[in-house]
């Protein structure tokens, strides 16, 4: 069994929060896959998909139907475990998600990469300068609790709405 009760993997803790509706202010993620293998053989530790229009009840449902657009969105997590996050690997992941976004007509997507190693300055610099609005990026070190977010609205929402730092057991996000 993957999850250990005393020390859950960060992806497990993050997913648990999303299942409980942590993303509800920005998207209604309704389906969660683990170890999801894409057509080209790439495996994502977590793949969640949903829409921007939440279901709600009575007033919130009416509000959602009349005001909110019904875009498809998705979230991808990669757990690099003890491997250092490399720039080339990260770029490949971004390309894969861009391709999946086009194929599935996603309005936007999140990519969150976990690693036990510290985040390299080159990665931190690359992620914090990433500003394409269709993809929100985050890299997180589970040992130092350091999180770096991309410089776009979707990227910032990873901490603001999805509360990534909570899943790492940290108090707050430390941006580089």
């Amino acid at each position, binding site marked *: 069994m993957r*999850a250990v009760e005393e020390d859950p993997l960060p992806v497990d803790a993050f997913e648990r929060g999303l299942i409980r509706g942590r993303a509800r202010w920005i998207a209604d993620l309704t389906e*969660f*896959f*683990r170890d999801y293998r894409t057509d080209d053989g790439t495996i994502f530790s977590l793949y969640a998909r949903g829409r921007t229009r939440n*279901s709600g009840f009575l007033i919130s449902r009416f509000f959602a139907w009349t005001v909110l657009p019904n875009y498809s969105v998705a979230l991808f997590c990669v757990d690099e475990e003890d491997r250092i996050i490399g720039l080339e690997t990260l770029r490949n992941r971004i390309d894969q998600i861009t391709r999946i976004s086009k194929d599935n007509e996603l309005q936007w997507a999140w990519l969150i990469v976990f690693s036990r190693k510290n985040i390299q300055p080159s990665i931190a610099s690359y992620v914090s300068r990433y500003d394409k609005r269709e993809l929100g990026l985050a890299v997180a070190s589970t040992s130092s609790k350091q999180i770096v977010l991309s410089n776009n609205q979707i990227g910032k929402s990873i901490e603001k709405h999805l509360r990534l730092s909570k899943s790492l057991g940290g108090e707050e996000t430390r941006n580089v």
Partner: protein
Amino acid sequence: MTKTQVSVVVSYSMPFVLLSAIVINNLLQAYGLSGTPSRLVFLSTAFPIGFSIGRAIYLRWSHTLIAFDSQSFSVVKGSKEIATGFWRSYRFVSIIIDRYGRPNLRLYKSIDGDHLDLPISRTNVRPQKIRDRVQGFLETEKSQRVSPRAVEAA
């Protein structure tokens, strides 16, 4: 895997509690006991009577039981088996959140294709734990199916 859904039992029971209380009250009046202090004791029996009837109806109609082993599974709702199958018939498993925010399990034959929902929210299991376990069954089934071909090829 199963769990008594208390809210459903209560919703089935309440009309019978009320009905039993009315019948008991009428009997108390007919036998001239309505003015005695013991009438509260008699009226309170409406609860066990109503809940017994409600629970019997719940068990017959709504109680959900999911039984599985490493090869197969079955879902029994009330007295009817609503789904049964083999893990090997499916390739993917996911947690799906229904419109009431309850997590259930979804089995896919192909991604975005035919699927079957297992109502695990009506049992007492943790969705992530059971999803991971089912994923293990699907992967084991896959590897078992693949290995004979590998032997033939060798």
